């Protein structure tokens, strides 16, 4: 039996919010266990003074002391999970500073999360899975070259993507909107195999990722079923030919967004947001529909417009769309409205997610939305950097899966 990954929890409030069980369940579902580092009162007092952040809440003081014990190696753990209440300013400061402190001073993978009483183990599952993968499967994530003939499938919330790779080259691609999860997967695979001119029997290993990864993974007997945070990181650095050193990967998806700091192809810290549809690709889809253009045309249209000419009153997908409709009714050009929509999504991701990770250049944007040039431009402007969009960026998850799956070929032999 594989030894459990031990995740140290630094937290304030989860037991009183009724979500501690959800955190425990999410960890257990990925073969990990949560533990609270055991420290003495003397350690708390000393560590607090040394850390230098004078907070009022005793649970946060305890979290700080526990972090210090972990970093200084007096308590052993494989990974760290930092959890505090959503909307608590004091906790947000501590959460952020602890994450930064642990990342800068230890090799421990960290994920931080702000919960409400509605947080479920399902919400936390992908994050826990990524955390355990980074802790347990470093050897797998170290893979830089694809070998043999492999298939990668990304069963996303909006689209399903399949990639066939052979000897470190992409030879077949399949892409279609996700309707019925399994049917979409089968069709995407058929498209990729047809383009590659490869028969299913020739595929030596299969990897799946995305929301439907478990269902599809079982259906197609995948060798690797892996969450999208680590897979997308691998896919991004591979396609951007930036497998060494630091970088940041941003994926604005159909249902949620991911921002991941990566070092040598291995994720360090990451955030995954899915609270508001206004910060997702859905908002851009709706904008394109309202403007009467294909989603593929939205980016070039936005590049001709100026976002500042359209007042946006809300980030919300409903009220934000209303602002765009009002602007059109008041005579704004379609170009300006498209630019405003792109700016709104980029700004919301920038304000609400990118503040939780330390941006390291180069910044690589991936996923379907990375093909919307107006969005990439808006994000680059906000981050004051030139964003890198690698080739096949919309297939990032499938490429990452195909790449990592090739690690299983030798095992099979």
């Amino acid at each position: 039996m594989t030894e459990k990954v031990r995740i140290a929890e630094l937290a304030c409030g989860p037991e009183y919010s009724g979500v501690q069980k959800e955190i425990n369940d999410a960890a257990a579902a990925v073969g990990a266990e949560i533990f609270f580092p055991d420290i003495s009162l003397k350690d708390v007092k000393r560590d607090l003074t040394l850390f230098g952040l004078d907070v009022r809440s005793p649970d946060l003081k305890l979290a700080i002391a526990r972090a210090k014990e972990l970093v200084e190696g007096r308590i052993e753990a494989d990974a760290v999970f930092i959890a505090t209440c959503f909307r608590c300013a004091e906790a947000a400061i501590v959460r952020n500073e602890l994450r930064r402190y642990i990342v800068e001073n230890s090799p421990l993978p960290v994920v931080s999360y702000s919960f409400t009483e509605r947080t479920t183990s399902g919400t936390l599952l992908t994050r826990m899975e990524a955390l355990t993968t980074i802790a347990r499967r470093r050897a797998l994530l170290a893979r830089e070259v694809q070998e043999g003939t492999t298939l990668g499938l990304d069963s996303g919330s909006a689209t399903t993507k399949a990639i066939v790779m052979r000897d470190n080259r992409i030879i077949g691609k399949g892409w279609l909107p996700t309707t019925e999860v399994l049917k979409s997967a089968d069709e995407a695979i058929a498209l990729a195999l047809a383009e590659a001119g490869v028969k299913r029997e020739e595929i030596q290993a299969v990897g799946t990722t995305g929301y439907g990864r478990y269902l599809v993974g079982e259906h197609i007997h995948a060798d690797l079923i892996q969450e999208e945070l680590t897979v997308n990181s691998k896919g991004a650095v591979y396609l951007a030919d930036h497998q060494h050193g630091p970088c940041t990967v941003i994926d604005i998806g159909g249902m949620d967004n991911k921002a991941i700091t990566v070092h040598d192809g291995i994720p360090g810290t990451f955030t995954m947001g899915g609270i508001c549809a206004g910060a997702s690709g859905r908002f851009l889809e709706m904008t394109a529909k309202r403007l009467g253009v294909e989603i593929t045309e939205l980016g070039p249209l936005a590049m001709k417009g100026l976002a500042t000419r359209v007042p946006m009153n809300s980030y919300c997908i409903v009220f934000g769309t209303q602002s765009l409709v009002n602007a059109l009714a008041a005579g704004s050009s379609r170009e300006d409205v498209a630019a405003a929509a792109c700016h709104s999504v980029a700004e919301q991701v920038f304000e609400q997610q990118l503040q939780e990770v330390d941006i390291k250049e180069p910044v690589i944007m991936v996923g379907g939305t990375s093909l919307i040039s107006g969005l990439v431009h808006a994000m680059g402007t906000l981050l004051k950097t030139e964003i890198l969009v690698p080739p096949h960026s919309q297939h990032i998850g499938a490429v990452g899966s195909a790449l990592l799956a090739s690690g299983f070929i030798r095992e099979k032999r």
Partner: protein
Amino acid sequence: MAKVFIYPTTSLILSDLVSRFGHEPLGSALGIRERIQTAGFDSPPLQVTPEEPKKGLRWAAVEVPSGVRGRMAFIGPQIEEAEAAIIINDADLAFGCMGCARTNELVMFLLRHRRIPVLDLTYPKSEEEGEIFVAAIREFLEKLPKGGKAE
């Protein structure tokens, strides 16, 4: 016997002092014991479910963090039930500790608005202060009616 709310609510020393002088201490141990002993829950470690933060809406609005509302689901009813209160300010962590500073602020505010007898003390820093501290608590508790509702 008066129902005496103690702050910090986790203080066993304070709880013990109140009991010794013949009154009923109201602290977090009571609320937690009630939940742990109630059959049917399966939400370790405290058997608090996501329902508690919703119950906490009685004392704090929905934009208040869930941890504050969840704590208030324990503490709020006790504040309403209390006939007297002992508040120890700046207590040492070893004396009793309440995890969330925002909850503590709300608890103090609600207690002071109850218009019940409240003993407000600062945690002693020396043996001499400690003796005065215990004497003050004793005097306060002795003045509370033993047989019925506090004046």
